[in-house]
């Protein structure tokens, strides 16, 4: 029990002292996961919106596919990206393996289906309300999709948030494609896994606390933003 409380105390001191090693790990985690979420939003949101308002062959199959891909196992994504980026792989020439870029790619692949599926749900709800009005005004389905993405921007923050939560918390994919190299590709989750296995609990606990705090803070900001938006725009 004393060892555990000592670990917590040391973890707290690391956080308060803004330990340089700790800060570097946290910043890299945020950089990788925010970039992956941004890419996932740029790709996934238009896909989700078009799945919601579009009428084309295979639409239902795509909806089922994206819903299913929400549960993609991170280690499998990591393995696939590893094969793509490894020296013998089709993208091996770019030398991205074991770099933050590889981690961003893996997380973006993991998060895009989540963003797309949640966006489809939000936009489908909006479409049922707006369809007749938008069609009456002469909006094409593509234009309607763009309009509904903008109109539902505050609700869609939840989709982005869910994607970010998935990205920042996953360990399997970034471990495989990043290699957990100290000072290069070591992020919060991979460090927690490594330090726990080594028995260095203070750093693992400090990172775990920061990870939870980051997720809670971003949720709080998004919640506040949605509340403001509803009061402001209805």
């Amino acid at each position: 029990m004393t060892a555990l409380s000592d670990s917590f105390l040391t973890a707290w001191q690391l956080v308060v002292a803004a330990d340089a090693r700790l800060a570097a790990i946290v910043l890299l985690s945020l950089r990788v996961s925010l970039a992956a979420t941004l890419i996932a939003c740029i790709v996934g949101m238009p896909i989700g919106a078009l799945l919601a308002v579009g009428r084309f062959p295979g639409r239902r199959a795509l909806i089922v596919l994206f819903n299913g891909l929400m549960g993609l196992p991170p280690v499998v994504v990591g393995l696939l990206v590893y094969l793509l980026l490894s020296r013998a792989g089709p993208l091996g020439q770019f030398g991205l393996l074991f770099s933050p870029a590889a981690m961003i790619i893996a997380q973006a692949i993991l998060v895009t289906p989540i963003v797309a599926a949640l966006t489809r749900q939000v936009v489908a709800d909006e479409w049922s309300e707006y369809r007749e009005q938008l069609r009456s005004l002469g909006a094409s389905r593509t234009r309607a999709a763009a309009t509904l993405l903008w109109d539902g921007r505050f609700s869609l923050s939840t989709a982005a948030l869910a994607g970010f939560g998935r990205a920042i918390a996953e360990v399997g994919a970034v471990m495989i494609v990043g290699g957990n190299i100290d000072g290069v590709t070591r992020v919060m989750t991979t460090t927690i896994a490594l330090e726990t296995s080594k028995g260095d609990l203070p750093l693992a606990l400090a990172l775990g606390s920061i990870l939870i705090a980051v997720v809670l803070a971003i949720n709080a900001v998004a919640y506040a933003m949605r509340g403001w938006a509803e009061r402001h725009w209805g």
Partner: protein
Amino acid sequence: MSAAWLAIDGLGLTEGATRIIDDVSLSLAAQRTVVLGPNGAGKSTLLRLIHGLLHPSGGRLHWPQPLTQGMVFQRPVMLRTTALANVIYGLKLKGHSADESRRRARAALARAGLDHIARRPARLLSGGEQQRVALARAWALEPELLILDEPTASLDPASTREVERIIGEIAAGGARILMTTHNLGQARRMADEIVFIDRGRVLEQTPVARFFNLPQSEAAQRFLQEETP
């Protein structure tokens, strides 16, 4: 009698085994036509078929001259932006430039008496104000035919009067008006001609005074008795 602006021939809409619109043939020539009928008669569906929001199962619409159309719904749908931007949106969809859209939108809001709320978030306006913004949005497009589906349902009397004033002004500008309402007083005030439908079939098409003074069908007589306070 002026020439028909729309001839409807054998129009039908079936869902499953239910005939929502049943072999409707009409020739619309009056400037202001109000479609009356009990709940579920098919009034709103008929308007949507004419506007092109629904595809008929049978029959056809013949437009002697294509008319630019606008439609205002019972429940106004506002984007999460200002009232002005809502009006601009419709204009941009029609291909107007940003400057031209802004100029036309401002003019339409002014005509609808809504200058003072142009910059306010549209979804936070009252129901009456939102419906007037919806009318301004349609008006800005300068429609030759304005279709309105119970535009004053659930509005208070003051808002209803204001909406009727705006519709009257749009009609005064030359637009044809085709609307449904459950408000018989409104039908008397707004219509030149009444089309009475029941269970998807047209039972009467007659000048407004004659419809209220001497309804021909039993269904219309019963409807007027039940709806008259």
